């Protein structure tokens, strides 16, 4: 039992474990009761960046801020908001950095056009190595 108490006190003291002493929001680590809504929330959470982490989505981070954002997303989904609205709200607040799905704009146009452009260039290059079929 002393060992347990020791381990517990060590855990409580660990800074990485708990960023603050406040308990996590209820929906940070628990799911919505409605599986359809939860799936919707989950699909959105994997595309949102945890702003204080080393490149993790809020759906798979232990950081307290990720937990808060998960709670926020679940609450808003439960209140009937659409994922796109929530994303827009977060982008308005934190900038494009928060979404892993960069919105189409003048700056991101090259990024989104790249796959098609690459295929076109590739086809043009590949044409040279084919022989014309004789008729």
């Amino acid at each position, binding site marked *: 039992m002393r*060992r*347990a108490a*020791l*381990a*517990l006190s*060590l*855990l409580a003291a*660990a*800074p*990485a*474990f*708990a960023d603050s002493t406040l*308990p*996590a929001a209820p929906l940070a*680590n*628990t*799911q919505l009761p409605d599986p359809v809504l939860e799936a919707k929330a*989950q699909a959105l959470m*994997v*595309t949102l*960046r945890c702003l204080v*982490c*080393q*490149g*993790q*989505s809020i*759906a*798979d*981070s*232990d950081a307290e801020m990720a937990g808060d954002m998960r709670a926020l997303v679940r609450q808003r989904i439960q209140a009937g908001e659409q994922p796109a609205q929530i994303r827009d709200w977060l982008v308005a607040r934190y*900038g*494009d*950095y*928060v*979404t*892993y*799905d*960069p919105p189409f704009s003048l*700056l*991101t146009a*090259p*990024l*989104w056009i*790249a*796959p098609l452009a*690459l*295929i076109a260039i*590739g*086809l043009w290059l*590949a044409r040279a*190595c*084919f*022989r014309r*079929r004789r008729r």
Partner: protein
Amino acid sequence: MIAEAGLAALWLAAALAAMQVVLAAIGVRRVLAAPDDESALTTDLIGAVRPVAIVQGALAALAMAMLIAVFLRSDMSVLLVAENSHSEKPWLYKFAGAWGNHEGSMLLWVTILGLAGGAVAIFERSLARATLTATLGAQALIALGFYAFLLFASNPFARIEPAPADGQGLNPLLQDPGLAFHPPTLYIGYVGISVAFSFAVGALVARDVGPAFARAMRPWVLGSWIFLTLGITAGSYWAYYELGWGGWWFWDPVENASLMPWLAATALLHSVTVLATRDGLRAWTVMLAVVAFSMSMIGTFLVRSGILTSVHAFAVDPTRGSFILALLVLYIGGALALFATRVGTVRVGNTFDPVSREGALVANNLLLSVILGVVLIGTLYPIIAAGFGVQLSVGPPFFDKAAGPVALLLVVVMAAGPLLRWRRDGWRALTSRMAVPGAAFAIGLVALLAFGRGVALLPLLGLALAAGLAVASVAPLWRRNLLRTPLFTWGMVVAHLGIAVSLAGMAAESAFTKQTLVAARVGEPLQVGPYTVTLKGISPVIGPNWSALEAHLVARRGDAPAIVLRPQSRFFTNPVTVTSESAIATRWDGQVYTVLGQIDPSGRVQLRLWWKPFVTLIWLGGALVALGGALSLFGRLLRERRARRRVEAEAWA
């Protein structure tokens, strides 16, 4: 003394690398000026390059051995050991900790590079002497840059005065058996590609781009590709169980850094086959070798510089990143310049019909290059945007949308390719050969649409295509004498089947995973997929250099024997960190994945539970791909040896 011996070995190796470059440069010049020159000076110059390359590799290995020795002895007077090790660490992590840091990992890089150069010098017998010498010269030039980097910017053997009483410890996330295998495997892959690159440079310098060069390069491409495959597969599984959220691929910059060389190497592997068998795609193959090496350099740069934030990054150092960036620009720029000046001398290889084995391999190369381009642009785009003062993130949604459809198209080409004849084939013949795989695809699609409710489009197509590809990949063995089928054909079949297996795993995981996140009380039954999981209790555990809280979970499904799972939350003191150790139970049809989270004041325990059907297929498929590569490699080497014996026998007759 051990550290000083290591440093001396490193300096000597660097000096030999410099000598190797000079000897090779003069020798190749003389041979190219007068190809029949058999004078004593020329032969001596050329003859000296091989032994120098071998000794250089041995000295680099000696330096690495010395570094491992100071880590094993916990010699805290060495700065690197003091900063990254701790005397109470288990020996495996002292050993592997030698490369769990920036300097050590770079030393491992050049060690493998040096050993690979030595291996080329010992084993390569079929290439023309000018090409081989130029290859070894190029290899030494690459090594020289990295020796300079180690000696001037990141000396692993620097001492610290006074020596601290003990070290600062290793990042606990790295304290895992994975560290012992994952980085060396990936580095062997990266460095193997540098050998392919050196062959390409050698062939360009000696104006010798043809089937002989392709056959000499192929085992190295295959070998490094096998290691890259293993490294990525193992790394993915390591991240899967270590990060504790059930994800196995995050499209993270560091993952992309290992994926890009793999994509380039895969393309190279297929184009080098066209060059070796049909003498086609000459310039393209050389270009791909340059691209593949560039990708492994960019990968090293991205990982080592920390320019992009990554969940897997460790021991990054931005100031040294600029040194690697300079090397990167120098090598890639130099190679591209050489390519541009010499590509005119590379004659156009054989051409072929669009509907042919070559045509399918060109499509393979095209699609792999597009995926590579998408991954590269997506990975670097945040840096470019930051240059315009905009902070943005490019992540899984982009890569899934942009690379996913191309990858699925590639799967279709992959199913058809091995069923096509070389040079020329017909659409009608292909359609009849694709009938059975096509039926497998259609059955899979219909079954999923009927029974798998709400499966998203990409996983749906992924599963159906995996079924079709699995059938198509074994089709080349149909009606063949299996004992007489060459080993490299078996290799192709197994590797392609591995891709089908892996694809099925990825799609199944994404389509059917069940997740349960709860704050649980002891004794309360929890449902995840087909399992009922009960928390029996929490108890403390003491490990060699950590203490932990351990949950005791019992998972039941129907009448099957109960599974006991013990996920832990580990607390490390050196340095102070908490990690979640997931507990995973593997069954034939999937994995139960459990993680212990926080305990809230009311005594409820945070648990994360997943049921992941067929997730293990992802890594099983990866292992099959690597096995296929190994079969191909042995098949090729055996055939080459037999051919050489035959030539020798004829020479004697």
